[in-house]
């Protein structure tokens, strides 16, 4: 019996480069992971902005002029989509990443996630308000 089993071992093949295409679950995982490319790209964008700001009024104004163009719109829409995916995927795992115990029981996951969304909304409104958007 044992011989039979070992004579034909089962080898589960895992394609090295395309394994995540097999299941929607893996694809969502990879989608979540690649958000980092866009978070990083936006950090680089902020560095460029800071550089233009440090170079003086003229440099900054030409940078802002560039922001009004279509390339900026496309860049920002893509980054925004991935930033939103990063935010939601980050908050949705918070009950697992940092479960909170209250007495004997754990605080329900929905409460932890909900609190994050509420704070996110507040932070976003305050940030945009302070920036003079409204």
């Amino acid at each position: 019996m044992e011989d039979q089993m070992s004579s034909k071992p089962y080898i589960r093949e895992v394609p090295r480069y395309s394994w995540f295409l097999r299941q929607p679950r893996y694809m969502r995982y990879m989608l979540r992971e690649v958000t980092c490319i866009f978070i990083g790209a936006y950090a680089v964008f902020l560095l460029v902005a800071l550089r233009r700001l440090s170079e003086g009024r003229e440099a900054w104004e030409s940078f802002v002029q560039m922001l009004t163009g279509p390339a900026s719109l496309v860049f920002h829409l893509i980054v925004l989509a991935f930033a939103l995916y990063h935010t939601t995927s980050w908050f949705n795992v918070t009950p697992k990443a940092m479960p909170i115990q209250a007495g004997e029981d754990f605080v329900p996951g929905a409460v932890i996630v909900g609190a994050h969304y509420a704070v996110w909304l507040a932070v976003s409104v305050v940030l945009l308000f302070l920036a003079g958007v409204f």
Partner: protein
Amino acid sequence: MAKSNKPIIWGLFAAGGTVTAFVAPALVLLTLLPALGVMPELLGYDKLRSFSGHWLGGLVVFGVIFLSLWHAAHRLRITLHDFGVRADLLVATAVYLAAAAGTVYAVYLLLRI
């Protein structure tokens, strides 16, 4: 027990993930608005210059850039492994060096404002 820098790197990754989760969408929206014909006050030269030049504002700008960079660097390292790139030492060195360079550059720029 062998010393490890894992807690520091992971701590920066988690802190960066949390900070960007809270502020990135609103920030991106802020710099997207000019393309839609809306110019937020903060993007005016004098306003942004005095904001970034103030120690507290500068610290906020630094914190966002610093943590975003380290979050992205660490996750990129892990993701490249998932995409089948196995040269981890090379990848880790490259991404962390890039994050460190960006961090230093941010400080340099902020000090010039």
